[in-house]
Each structure stands twice: as structure tokens, then as C-alpha cells.
């Protein structure tokens, strides 16, 4: 029983000392700026509207501008 407790104690101590080995590196290169993907490339989910072609900037812009006009009630009720 004494031996078992000693073994367990050693194991716990080893685990505590070795825990630092799993720390992720905190280096400046990790925090570098990443490029963002333009919205006209589309989204990888099922919520995209259907009236434009992803990856074509002009198609996206035209679709967004049409949608934008829906915010004007003057263009909706004439």
C-alpha cells in the first residue's frame, strides 16, 4: 500500500512537471495578420442568396445594390 501511494505521488508529480510541455508556443509569428476573403467569394454555408454568382465581384455588387434599394420604400410602392 505504501509503495502504491509513493508511485501515485511520483506519477502526479511527473504529470505536474510535464504539464508545461503541452503549453502552446507564444511567439510573435503566431499573431501575424491573416488575409481576409472578400465577400463576393461567397460563404461556405446554406444561407447564401441565389441571385448572384460567387467569385464574380460584379455579380455580387449588382445583387447587393438591388437589395440595397429595398430599403427605400419610395422604390417599393410606386
Amino acid at each position, binding site marked *: 500500500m505504501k509503495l502504491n501511494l509513493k508511485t501515485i505521488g511520483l506519477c502526479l508529480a511527473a504529470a505536474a512537471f510535464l504539464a508545461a510541455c503541452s503549453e502552446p508556443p507564444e511567439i510573435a509569428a503566431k*499573431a501575424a*495578420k*491573416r*488575409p*481576409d*476573403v*472578400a*465577400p*463576393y*467569394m*461567397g*460563404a*461556405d*454555408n446554406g*444561407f*447564401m*442568396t441565389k*441571385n*448572384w454568382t460567387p467569385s464574380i*465581384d460584379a455579380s*455580387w*455588387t449588382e*445583387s*447587393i*445594390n438591388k*437589395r*440595397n*434599394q*429595398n*430599403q*427605400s*420604400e*419610395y422604390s417599393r410602392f410606386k
Partner: protein
Amino acid sequence: MARMKFICDTERCIECNGCVTACKNDNEVPWGVNRRRVVTVNDGIIGKEKSISVACMHCSDAPCMAVCPVDCFYRTDEGVVLHDKDICIGCGYCSFACPFGAPQFLSSGAFGVRSKMDKCTFCSGGPEANGSVAEFEKYGRNRLAEGKLPLCAEMCSTKALIGGDSEVISSIYAKRVSVREANGRYPSKDIFGWTTAYGPMDSSPKPTPADKIPGAKS
């Protein structure tokens, strides 16, 4: 190329807080953080009470970008000011610099530990892949990549808040002003926050301090 902006029409906003609710719900913004909020001035004074929906205005010369010590901000081709939460250290400098109080911090823990900064993204996510789960968890929805506009503007019941390409929304607002003027009401053409966020409306050169000193070169 579109240049995305917001306009809030103070003559139309009825302080329903629908934009605030829509933003919080769609982006699953945590309790204690408001990316958008409605401010009312002259509350209760008949004829003088005005409400305005305020969030990040995605300024042309954004002061938050200028003061960030770790340079976590970037501007997209659409003119939207975004930030990378993997770089942000939550120092709060942007919060002091912003004239609109847009940067928000989640206070957590017994000592009020500040989180990384959170703000309106014009519903265009962050540097993660468009529409990905990682992007949603950090920044909320990316509606622009889905071919949509920010939900706060699209669902505004009175269309007080409009968002999108500056040329389009400016023309919508100009039409409203002309109708009001034709009816002899609300002649003001001022838009809250536009001069602060995007600079003076006219493009004429302004005198610099050096112009006032004889012989100095600007």
C-alpha cells in the same frame, strides 16, 4: 467597388430597439455586450425627442486603427473596419479613441477581467473562412458573403437605419429629404455621425496650420 456605410435617420427612429435585438440574436452576442444600441436625447420633451441607433460607423480614417498597439485592425475593400481577435489583447485603447463608443468588452470574473474587443462587423465576419463555424463563434454572421446586408438595417421597421453602399444609401436619404422639403417639414439634411466618421461632405481643401504661418511650408 462598394463603400459600406450606415445612415440613421433621426426623424424616423422610434426607439423600438429592434436593431439591437436583431444584432444580438443573429450574431449571438453575449450578455453585457451591445454592438448596436439606441440613444435618445431630450427624452419626454414633445417635438424635441430624437432617437438614434449607434454602432461602429466603419470610419474612413478610423481612430481605433490608429491607436491599436498590436495593429489588429484592417479595412476590407468594401470599407468595413474589422479586427482579428487572435491578435487583440483587450487593452481598451480603441474604446477610448472611438467617437461612437463602438468597441465593447465582456467583463467576466470576480475582478472584472476584460475580454478581447468586440464590435459591429457590418455583418461581414472576420479573417476566418467566410461562413465558417469558427468565424461565427468569434465574430458572428457573415451576411455580406451570403449576398445580404446587415440585419439591423434590413429589418428596421421604419427604415430609419439603412446600411449599404454609400452612393445608394445617400441617394435614398436624399430622396427622403427632398420629399420632406416638398412637404415643408424637417428641412435638416444633416446625418448623425457622418462628418465625424467620414470627414466633411465638401471636398474643397481646408487650410492647414502651416497655411496660417507666413513663410511656412505645409
